[in-house]
């Protein structure tokens, strides 16, 4: 089961604070959408509104074309995977996973079978009789996922589900989450503040800031062709050079007016957009690349971050003639 979600001009006010400011978003059925942004950007508020844990001050939410106004969380075709798992500690894994089915009146034998199937889906086959406290954090999160998917929701909401896991486990779980989503075909709406996680799993990333959508698109597009300065900065490191009338601190540049944004890895000695000679101020070896701080001779106060090839070993103080292969110019 899967369904699309329409969010139409949703505004959420808490007293005088504006948590969401006229958000419009169309999510297609079966899509894996990630709501990405810093804390306080409204992403969790939006998730709560889709899940029915909060009613928007104004605007509408439609799931599968059905208006959700006044529909309680328990009656929505959505389920949620919570950051702290929120498993029922007094129940076995089978009872946890079967809980939603029990609420829908399914007989015990049938729901135990379904629970076993769901536990197998998340790689926990044969542990049906265990209790949550016997599991590790990653395993608990898998149970939470199995529990939320067992009722075959149209839309699965994930509220920073990997936030409590350590980095290595988080990366492993991302791949798995993506694979499971492909398998079940349910619409996933996933909230995170980790842009690497967002890029690893999303079909589409929705970058949010200050209660508004700052950018939206597939990972490649949001990273390489951001539509706002906020989005450019949030998705990764970026060098920003203001350009007015074809002139900049680096000298004349053949780009439109605005802020020239260049990713560190887009700068090299062969780049097409010439940035001019730059002095190497500092280098750090990062394994897959060499990170260097350089300052253009034309503008010694300006510092650019450049990712050079792993094998590069420029002397400190040496001068490199650099150019950018790829860049965007955004409105300031």
């Amino acid at each position: 089961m899967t369904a699309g979600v329409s969010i139409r001009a949703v505004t959420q006010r808490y007293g005088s604070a504006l948590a969401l400011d006229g958000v419009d978003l169309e999510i297609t059925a079966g899509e894996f959408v990630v709501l990405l942004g810093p804390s306080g950007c409204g992403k969790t508020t939006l998730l709560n509104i889709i899940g029915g844990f909060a009613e928007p001050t104004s605007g509408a939410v439609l799931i599968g074309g059905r208006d959700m106004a006044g529909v309680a969380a328990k009656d929505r075709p959505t389920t949620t995977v919570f950051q702290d798992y929120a498993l029922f500690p007094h129940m076995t894994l089978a009872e946890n996973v079967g809980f939603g089915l029990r609420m829908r009146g399914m007989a015990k034998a049938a729901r135990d079978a379904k629970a076993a199937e769901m536990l197998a889906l998340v790689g926990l086959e044969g542990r049906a009789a265990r209790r949550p406290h016997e599991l590790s954090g990653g395993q608990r999160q898998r149970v939470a996922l199995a529990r939320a998917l067992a009722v075959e929701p149209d839309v699965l909401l994930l509220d920073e589900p990997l936030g409590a896991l350590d980095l290595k486990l988080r990366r492993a779980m991302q791949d798995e989450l993506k694979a499971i989503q492909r398998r079940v075909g349910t619409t996933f709406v996933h909230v995170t503040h980790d842009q690497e996680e967002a890029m690893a799993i999303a079909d589409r990333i929705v970058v949010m800031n200050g209660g508004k959508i700052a950018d939206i698109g597939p990972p490649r597009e949001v990273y390489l062709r951001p539509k706002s300065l906020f989005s450019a900065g949030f998705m990764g490191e970026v060098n920003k050079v203001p350009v007015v009338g074809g002139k900049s601190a680096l000298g004349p540049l053949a780009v439109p007016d605005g802020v020239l944004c260049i990713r560190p890895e887009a700068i090299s000695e062969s780049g097409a957009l010439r940035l001019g000679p730059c002095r190497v101020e500092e280098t750090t070896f990062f394994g897959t690349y060499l990170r260097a701080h350089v300052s253009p001779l034309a503008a010694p106060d300006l510092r650019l971050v450049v990712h050079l090839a792993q094998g590069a070993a420029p002397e400190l103080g040496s001068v490199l003639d650099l150019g950018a292969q790829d860049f965007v110019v955004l409105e300031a």
Partner: protein
Amino acid sequence: MRALSWAYLAIAYAFVFLPVAVLVAFSFQDGRLPVPPFQGVTLDWYAKVLGDRDLMAALVNSALVAAVSSLIALILGFLAAHALARVRLPGSVLLRGVLIAPMTVSYLIIALGLLTVFNQTGVRLSLWTAGIGHVVINLPLCFAITYAAMGDHQKNAERAARDLGAPEWKVLALVSAPMLAAPLAAAFFLSVTFSWDEFIIAFLLTRFDVTLPVEIWSMLRSGISPATNAVGSLVFLVSVTLVVVLEVFVFRRAKT
């Protein structure tokens, strides 16, 4: 210094337990009076007590009143605690205070107040009225214990249950209450022990059927005998058993 602290410990425990030890010891007195000298061991008094119809009836009454009133106090206290912990109500601090307030009122005042109310409204005194009195004294206790135990942990699990389609009463019955099993059991057993021992309220609010402490009191009016010690020992045994059950099955499990 070390010896002194051991001595202090011994004296402190003796102070607390000597009266109980003497009571229990003289319940085995082979003689007419439960006072020294100790004249030998007999179980006659226990036989007499256990064969006494009125006493046994009072014992059953006490157990019933304790169990039913504690259960009601527990349910009401749990529901109130859940509501005040989960829902933002205007004046919830005041509501909480008012719920706990009866703890500070003496049992005598509560009993007299209830007696007046029952007389005015024409409710006849019975085990039920005594039970109502015990609900009044145990409700604040049950409320305070369960309220203190409620945390975000349960709150999130409750949210998950709702998200999975559970109506509110099932959230309470299948998630909130089982997650609070230990504090709920603690509140229940404490209520039972308080109700089991309680005299003033039971004395003022019962008439023909009475609870055990009231029955013992009427035994005492006809003079002391080792039989009263035997009853006292039995009451003490029940209380101790409850506390041990609580310790072993509730508190110890809650720690693991």
